């Protein structure tokens, strides 16, 4: 029977207006992979921040190896052998790999030794990495390796991983799992946070489920179904999107050899992208983050107009048109990053509605805004998409992520577009809201809208798309019908393991 490594008893942390963690207790044993499950807002992040010393608990105690453990800052945690790989990477783009690693260590060795040790560890664990590369030029998978290696160099007893696979291709996920299993066999415990249930079933020994800050269940993932775990997380069952039955109509959107230079130093150029999108069709575009998704959306929305002759809507060249003209032509888009890109954070929901729907919905006449109509339109979106908010006067930033996302997608859907482009429609949204958004997109397609969904969530794309393609370094792969795809094929389309040929886990 392995010993307990870390014991949490009665951890409680409250913020003004919300109890993030309420009396959470569980144990992590040596050499086990322990899953922490829960929806967004269930309190997973706060819990691991307490373990890592970024947040001090209001109540409750922790014990590491039986001794009291109360880190007051992350360096205490690192000294005690607790390391963390962050969800939104804690990396510095303009610095190189070795500098990034040094910043995460307590007593980094001189630069030359550090570079050698980075190479050693990266070979041992099958995570190839060049210490001199600038982090801003690395792929998402490589960045994660920087984080992992930074942790491994300190020989941690407990490694916390916050949603590590959300940015990886299936092949990269396999490599990561090999690394984690090797670490486990060496006696390192891993606290693995995720809401990808199948992953947890294949990888983890135990799971603790949080809901609204409370521990609601524990289970052995390999003996439980993904559906049962999902219901533990949500506390209720939820509807899967209805299956699609339709035949595509006319070509509404044609993209013809779209090529554009990178917008900024760390951006991605678009290379020779061509596809056709038909009425009633949902095209899913996957790919690892940073392979041209944002750039593709910008050129389709009109934020960065591409060269003439590349984008055709219903046979008309709209390439040089700006967003307003494209909207007028029925070509709508909803970018990712709801705060700051899709919505103006400090403006009310009504004002945000006017910003994109003003023209199509007749909310603006002769340069004057008809606030009554605007309010009614915003209220309509709120009612139809079940946006939980006190009213239309509320500032966008006051809404939770899922609710705001429902609003910004709903705002476009409600305008009955001919073509709709969405980027990451359910990113950071809880399962119930995500299901609602997907259903809204499917309903829209049934009514004859051509929809392009850019997403990093493969499950989502498989669920709603008719055809699938992947972006890899700004190139779009061949488009294939979703029904005939295997995970293997998808991985290869996403660029798979081509940059990992050297990767192998040493025995």
């Amino acid at each position, binding site marked *: 029977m392995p010993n307990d490594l870390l014991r949490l008893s009665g951890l409680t942390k409250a913020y003004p207006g919300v109890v993030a963690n309420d009396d959470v207790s569980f144990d992590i044993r040596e050499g086990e992979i322990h899953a922490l499950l829960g929806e967004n807002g269930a309190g997973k*992040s706060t819990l691991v921040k307490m373990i890592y010393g970024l*947040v001090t608990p209001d109540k409750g105690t922790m014990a590491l190896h039986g001794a009291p453990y109360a880190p007051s800052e992350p360096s205490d945690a690192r000294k005690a052998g607790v390391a963390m790989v*962050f969800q939104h990477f*804690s*990396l*510095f*783009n*303009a610095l190189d790999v070795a500098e990034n690693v040094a*910043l*995460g260590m307590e007593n980094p060795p001189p630069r030359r030794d550090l570079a050698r040790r980075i190479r050693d560890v990266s070979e041992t664990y099958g995570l190839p990495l060049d210490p001199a590369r600038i982090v801003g030029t690395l792929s998402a998978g490589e960045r994660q390796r920087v984080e992992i290696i930074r942790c491994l160099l300190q020989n941690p007893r407990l490694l916390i991983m916050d949603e590590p696979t959300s940015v990886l291709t299936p092949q990269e996920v396999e490599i990561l799992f090999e690394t984690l299993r090797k670490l486990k066999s060496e006696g390192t415990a891993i606290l693995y946070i995720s809401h990808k249930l199948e992953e947890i079933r294949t990888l983890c020994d135990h799971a603790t489920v949080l809901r609204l800050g409370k521990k609601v269940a524990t289970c052995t993932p390999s003996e439980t179904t993904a559906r049962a775990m999902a219901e533990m997380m949500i506390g209720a069952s939820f509807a899967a999107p209805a299956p699609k039955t339709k035949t595509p109509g006319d070509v509404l959107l044609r993209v013809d050899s779209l090529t554009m230079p990178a917008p900024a130093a760390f951006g991605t150029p678009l290379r020779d992208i061509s596809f056709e999108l038909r009425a009633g069709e949902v095209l899913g575009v996957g790919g690892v983050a940073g392979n041209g998704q944002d750039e593709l959306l910008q050129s389709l929305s009109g934020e960065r107009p591409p060269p003439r002759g590349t984008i055709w809507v219903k046979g008309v060249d709209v390439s040089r048109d700006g967003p307003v003209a494209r909207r007028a032509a029925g070509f709508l888009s909803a970018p990712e990053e709801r705060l700051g890109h899709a919505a103006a954070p400090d403006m009310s929901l009504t004002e945000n509605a006017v910003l994109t729907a003003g023209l199509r919905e007749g909310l603006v006449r002769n340069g004057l805004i008809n606030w009554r109509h605007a309010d009614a339109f915003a209220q309509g979106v709120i009612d139809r998409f079940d946006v939980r908010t006190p009213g239309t006067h509320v500032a966008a930033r006051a809404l939770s992520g899922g609710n705001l996302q429902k609003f910004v997608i709903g705002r476009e859907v409600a305008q009955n577009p001919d073509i709709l482009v969405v980027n990451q429609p359910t990113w950071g949204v809880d399962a119930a809201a995500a299901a609602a958004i997907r259903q809204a997109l499917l309903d829209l397609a049934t009514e004859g809208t051509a929809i392009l969904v850019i997403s990093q969530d493969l499950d989502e794309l498989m669920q709603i798309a008719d055809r699938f393609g992947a972006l890899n370094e700004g190139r779009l792969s061949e488009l294939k019908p979703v029904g005939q795809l295997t995970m293997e094929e998808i991985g290869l389309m996403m660029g798979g393991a081509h940059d990992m040929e050297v990767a192998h886990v040493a025995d």
Partner: protein
Amino acid sequence: MDLSNINPILLIASIMISATPILLAALGEMVVEKSGVLNLGVEGMMISGAVIGFIVAINTGAPLLGFATAAVAGAVLSLSFGILTQVLLSNQVATGLGLTLLGLGLSSLLGKPYEGMKAETLPKLDIPVLGDLPVVGRMLFSHDIMVYLSLALVVAVWAFLKYTRAGLILRAVGESHDSAHALGYKVVRVRLLAIMFGGACAGLGGAYLSLVRVPQWTEGMTAGAGWIALAIVVFASWRAGRVLIGAYLFGGITVLQLNLQAAGLTWGVQYLSMSPYLITILVLVFISSNRSRSNHDAPATLGRTFHATR
């Protein structure tokens, strides 16, 4: 016009004197900006350093003490900016402009009784062997200690940022304060220290104007030197070596145009007077536009307010 009046040895020597105040101020501001803070109060800190250094030097007769007090005064003044922007989260641009206005007003108030006086200046160093070399000795090796201190500071700042852990942390804070905070670094503390260093450097630069270059106190004597220092930092792409080039270029053209005027060039005096500003900016724009893009990117969080949330 008689160009033979211009002595190249004296010209180079006076270029070094003329460039030193801007070099000091720009170097300090570069460190501040590397930590992600935009302090537009350089002009105000410089002129405060100038007046306080001058007052202390006159009353004690010790110019070095004047410099030390000017550095402390600059640091204290910048600390007020630091507390306002880093602790109370005020807007950096507005606060920096306020600091400049405060410095200009405060200095003219404090300096009123001292107008027209003459303080003791710094002695020229008597460097053995090097100072006795023909031509080069007069040109490069017979200056006061602050000139050499400013050059040493260029090397020190460069080495600090490139080779030391503290320098790495400072750059990391300027690159992504959220990441630095997540790793447990004290973002606000690092920035306050950088701001104070910048203030001290600006104070030294100002004192060099009133104690060596001019050397007396006149109201508004910095005449935009602080703004030039700010511009130099940007066009030098936040690199110590290029800050040196920029400052010496500006100092050089300033001195050259003065010499040309003294030599009897009567044509377009206004154009000559504006030439240092124009040429410095043009040259540095040319340098920074000619490199690959990632090389001269500003610190990613420059001017952004940091507030540690959950």
